[in-house]
């Protein structure tokens, strides 16, 4: 495995502050300050000078990630091409932040796939170290899952084939090369994969510009605008700034319509508790594995790393000019503001509907075949290693062998002081029991990641369909997963 290094290029190595002051001096030679005000100022130094603080929330509009266009649609298969490469993002006004990105952007481009239409994503590694791509939440053959040991070497490529046979869900794709995901995801290798189906259309949910993926991640910065990362194996990384779709706590101008907002927690290790305004209502319609059986009204919901929650927010009753903040009540002073919705007029009449009653019927699961208890703990002594059932990751060892088509009872037992968002590759599960209380109705549909709180035991029932082979399950607090809170399962026929 080649060694990771933070993204950089010639530009990023320059001293931004020093370069910035040269630019200001140059401007002053040619024009007065009044011309500065009149003209649209585009130099980075001027933008920096205008901004009160580059961290002030609600200064930028929510960026919407571009959608990837297939390069071919022949034979009922959509083929996409993606370069995994370095790029520069303008995250703080007037600064350029070096990133790693799918197509060189952060977050990466959104793929909109359709149930029943397979997709091939041709990923090419233009980085200087190994990488791979995991479709998080996807039912995909083991070879295409992005197992930590199946990597793409620099200059090489791999065609990930996604059958898209599962129900509509908000999936996402990210790097999964073993031992460095905390850094590669932090530096930008994160993107959305929206799988749609007919059922969603029957429900007449909002579409197009009213259906928005929202990728939340906490970050920190250096003086030159580059991302600042500091490894914390115990707590996991904590940043002092919330980025939403790559902008510091942005605002979204919303019309008086219904919006489908798809939240993804792409943070390394931070859990959120999201609340709309003064406890305004959000209608949760989906979780990791797609639609809930029935919509659930919520005023606040927790979102652990790698989890997804989709809500409908009805802005029709608000007058234009209303401003409503989505806040993280679990945050500190500078990580409370997530984003703001500014209601504006226009938008015409609404074709979408707020669903009432049943949205889907969840499949009845076979009786469990086996049960396993997985203790989640920190091994200390001469070294530090996070463990599952007193074991760290060993690619040469298979830790559990479920039979294809069966279900099992898996108990996550967490005596540690940290939250462990436990994620199972390749399969979905249902949350049966939480020792801390009842399982919220918003968590009773299909899931692929569940937040196990300190002191808690959570029982889940995975269903091992549709593919056999070697997969992993791990903690999605990335510093924990990297060091080495991950085991292997092999689903056998």
């Amino acid at each position, binding site marked *: 495995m080649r060694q990771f290094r933070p993204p950089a290029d010639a530009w990023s190595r320059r001293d931004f502050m020093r370069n910035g002051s040269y630019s200001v001096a140059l401007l002053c030679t040619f024009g007065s300050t009044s011309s500065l005000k009149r003209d649209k100022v585009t130099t980075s130094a001027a933008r920096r000078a205008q901004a009160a603080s580059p961290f002030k929330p609600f200064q930028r509009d929510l960026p919407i990630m571009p959608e990837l266009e297939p390069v071919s649609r022949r034979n009922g298969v959509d083929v996409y091409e993606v370069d995994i490469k370095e790029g520069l993002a303008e995250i703080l006004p007037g600064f350029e932040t070096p990133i790693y990105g799918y197509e060189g952007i952060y977050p990466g481009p959104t793929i909109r796939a359709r149930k029943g239409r397979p997709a091939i994503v041709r990923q090419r590694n233009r980085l200087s170290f190994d990488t791979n791509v995991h479709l998080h939440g996807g039912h995909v053959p083991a070879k295409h899952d992005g197992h930590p040991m199946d990597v793409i070497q620099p200059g090489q490529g791999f065609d990930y084939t996604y059958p898209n046979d599962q129900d509509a869900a908000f999936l996402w794709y990210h790097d999964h090369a073993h031992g460095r995901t905390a850094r590669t995801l932090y530096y930008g290798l994160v993107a959305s994969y929206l799988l749609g189906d007919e059922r969603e259309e029957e429900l007449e949910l909002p579409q197009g510009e009213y259906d928005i993926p929202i990728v939340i991640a906490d970050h920190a910065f250096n003086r030159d605008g580059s991302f600042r990362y500091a490894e914390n194996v115990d707590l996991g990384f904590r940043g002092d700034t919330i980025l939403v779709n790559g902008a510091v706590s942005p605002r979204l101008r919303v019309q008086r319509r219904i919006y489908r907002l798809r939240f993804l927690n792409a943070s390394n290790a931070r859990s959120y508790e999201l609340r709309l305004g003064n406890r305004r209502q959000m209608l949760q319609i989906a979780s990791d594995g797609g639609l809930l059986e029935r919509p659930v009204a919520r005023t606040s919901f927790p979102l652990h790393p790698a989890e997804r929650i989709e809500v409908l927010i009805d802005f029709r009753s608000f007058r234009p000019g209303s401003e409503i903040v989505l806040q993280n009540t679990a945050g500190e002073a*500078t990580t409370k503001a997530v984003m703001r919705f500014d209601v504006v007029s226009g938008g015409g009449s609404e074709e979408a509907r707020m669903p009432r009653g049943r949205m889907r019927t969840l499949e009845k699961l076979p009786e469990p075949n086996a049960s396993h208890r997985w203790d989640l703990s920190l091994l200390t002594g001469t070294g530090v290693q996070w463990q599952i059932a007193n074991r760290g990751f060993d690619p040469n060892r298979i830790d559990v062998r479920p039979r294809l088509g069966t279900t099992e009872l898996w108990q996550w037992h967490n005596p540690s002081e940290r939250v462990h968002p436990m994620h199972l590759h390749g399969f979905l599960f249902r949350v049966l029991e939480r020792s801390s209380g009842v399982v919220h109705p918003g968590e009773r549909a299909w899931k692929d990641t569940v937040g196990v709180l300190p002191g808690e035991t959570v029982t889940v029932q995975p269903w091992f369909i549709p593919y056999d082979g070697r997969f992993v399950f791990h903690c999605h607090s990335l510093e924990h997963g990297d060091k080495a809170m991950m085991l292997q399962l092999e689903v056998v026929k």
Partner: protein
Amino acid sequence: MRRALIALGAAAAGFGVAAAPAQADTVVIAGTDALVWEPSLVDIKPGDTVTWTFAGTTQYHNVWSASPNWSVQSPGGVPAPDFSYTFEAEGTYDFYCQVHPDTMRGTVRVAAAPPPPPPPPPPSAQPFGNDAGEPLTIESNVKLDKTRPRLSRLSARRAGKRAARVRFRVSEQSDVTVRFKRGKRTIKTAETSADGVGTIRVRGLRPGSYRILVRATDLAGNRAKSRTLRLNLR
């Protein structure tokens, strides 16, 4: 911080008496839950001892040597036990916490004479802290629309064979419904979305006398007072 001052003071005192024979000092470096060493750089003279302390910490820490000129792996814990090491030979000794290897790095410099101060780090290594932590205004200017839309300038007339056109004006963006009735029976219903002046054309009407019910519902669901028109189609 206080501990840091003591440590620095101790280090300075150490150099002050460097010429005097064999007075060994102890310098304290505190491991903190802010994930830094306080202080992260100490200057001592040969024979001095450094003690790493972790009192009151709630995260797991330890001290590992990070340069090849010494070998140390202290026991960790929450909080970790104090750990001491006496430096006999001149040199630069790096150390780190294995759990927080990026931020908890430090150096002990052992020299008989004080070394020059280190250069400042480049901007790409200096933290740019978020200073925007003002109290949040959770909602501002939030007003719910509870005003009913108003229908005005209503008219209905024949518009071709077996068809009629209803004109109206609605005070805000609304869904407008017209219902053509004969007696209690609804013959035809049509709906449109409008803001301001709008029309709805209804076809398939047989000759006769109609009562036309016009309704408007705004985006927030408020309903206008319904209005009635009459039309004789021949």
